[in-house]
């Protein structure tokens, strides 16, 4: 383990990533600027099809909105959970942490399936509504945007909760005591002391949730169904059903670019807020 030769240990991963990660992505970019998947001729057709088509633009905007709504919904529930975790004793702390990790370890397909059972015509919510007399016939929840957002709230919540818990766990309890004993109300202490310190976790969580919800193909297609149009389903459709690979590539890159732009904006926002 000589200091000067140790860099060679990183070589296998660097080579593997160049071959199996970087090269495919470059081919993806190349294909989007070609007439067909064999890269016979350069062409802007795929990008015209992607960006010049109002249906595709609508799908893109729907996808970005879905990601944003998932961030709002997960924040609304994960922030109180993180605060409770901060105030809780070791036993409750452990329970909250396990609750956050358990969904993460049950596959996305299982989590999506559980929401079919909950949102379906004879599912948990409709049974409860009819039993309590709030509804006389089943309410359509599957294949609606609110249903999909509710499902994504659970499916993506660990990605918000774990970074938040990591950030709030580092907050020194003495700071809170100081704020409160100086006469700060609970709300004021949360806003002025806890929120600024938890912000890096919030930004990290928002980035992960946005990226994951916007590209959650299985949840979108199974719970959203055919009536709601999102870009990941269009990518799959173009690649595996229509076999128009240049258009599929242009769509995938549009999705990737939008997600990376939002992630970049969020990280700038987090940095700006910390300096303010």
């Amino acid at each position, binding site marked *: *383990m000589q200091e000067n030769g140790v860099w060679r240990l990183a070589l296998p991963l660097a080579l*593997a990533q160049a071959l*199996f990660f970087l090269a495919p992505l470059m081919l993806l970019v190349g294909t989007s600027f070609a007439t067909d998947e064999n890269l016979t001729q350069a062409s802007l057709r795929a990008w015209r099809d992607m960006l010049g088509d109002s249906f595709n633009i609508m799908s893109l905007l729907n996808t970005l909105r879905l990601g944003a709504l998932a961030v709002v919904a997960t924040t609304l529930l994960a922030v109180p959970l993180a605060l409770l975790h901060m105030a809780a004793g070791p036993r409750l702390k452990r329970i909250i942490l396990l609750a956050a990790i358990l969904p993460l370890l049950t596959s996305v*397909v299982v989590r999506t399936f559980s929401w*079919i059972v909950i949102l379906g015509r004879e599912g948990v919510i409709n049974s409860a509504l009819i039993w309590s007399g709030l509804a006389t016939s089943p309410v359509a929840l599957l294949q609606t945007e609110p249903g999909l957002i509710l499902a994504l709230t659970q499916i993506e919540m660990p990605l918000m909760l774990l970074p938040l818990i990591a950030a709030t766990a580092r907050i020194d309890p003495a700071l809170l005591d100081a704020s409160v004993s100086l006469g700060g109300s609970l709300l004021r202490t949360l806003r002025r002391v806890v929120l600024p310190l938890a912000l890096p976790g919030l930004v990290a969580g928002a980035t992960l949730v946005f990226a994951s919800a916007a590209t959650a193909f299985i949840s979108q297609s199974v719970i959203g169904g055919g009536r709601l149009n999102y870009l990941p389903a269009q990518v799959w459709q173009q690649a595996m059903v229509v076999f128009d690979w240049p258009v599929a590539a242009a769509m995938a890159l549009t999705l990737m670019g939008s997600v990376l732009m939002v992630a970049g904006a969020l990280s700038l926002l987090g940095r700006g807020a910390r300096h303010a």
Partner: protein
Amino acid sequence: MHRLTGADRLVALVIIALAAIGFLILVGPVLIVLVTSFTSSRALRFPPPGLTFRWYLELFDPVRSAQIHVAALNSLLVATLTAISATALATGAALAVARTRAGWARFAEGAFLAPLVLPGIAFGLASLMFFSWLHQPPSLLLLVAGHTMIATPFALRTVGASAAGMDAALLESSAVLGASPWRTFRRVVLPLIMPGVAAGAFLSFVSSLDNVPVSLFLSSAQTDMLPIRLWGMMETALDVRVAAASGVLVTGAFVLLLVMDRAVGLTRRMSV
């Protein structure tokens, strides 16, 4: 202790109520799936009209569920190979980054973690194009290559965290006492970073087992993967065997989680 004012109490109450809803939403669906998997009904009715093991029996029926078994075995094989390759690649890279002060190490670390931020669906499509361009027919090895790219950053983070806490003096002592680099690695480095390596292998395994975006494009009729098969079963006729399969997966994940938590403190490692 100071006295809570009325407004403070209201704020605390709202926080606790929202946290309770959050907890319910996190845990509820998992429990509901477990209960549903024992339903006697052919429909996904909740609460189930009666409880039986029929869907588990059907799931484990070697003839009627043969396709599911093939997909499950493929997934387990790919996940095992992915865990091995991702952990090996990540351990080397993490040691290199942790033991180097030069600026390139920070840059390399960022590049190594890049697959984390990239939408999986774009990478899945890119892999399909790449392998088809190389005229590679679908095979489980291609799936291992794709899954490894997605899984390595998880392993890199856990091994990296362990390697960063390693005392350099121990390595120097080992070398001064005449141990070869390999012996130092086996006897000193590996035991020190073992919790990170084990956690990394576990996370890589789970990430491969659950992978959808890469399998979506790289799997085929011969190399069917479990999540893709289950997705197909959900899209077409809703098959209650999916609930039984979910029951098996949830139980497996829970047992693994408890074991890993006991062994290497996984819950602690995942929240940093």
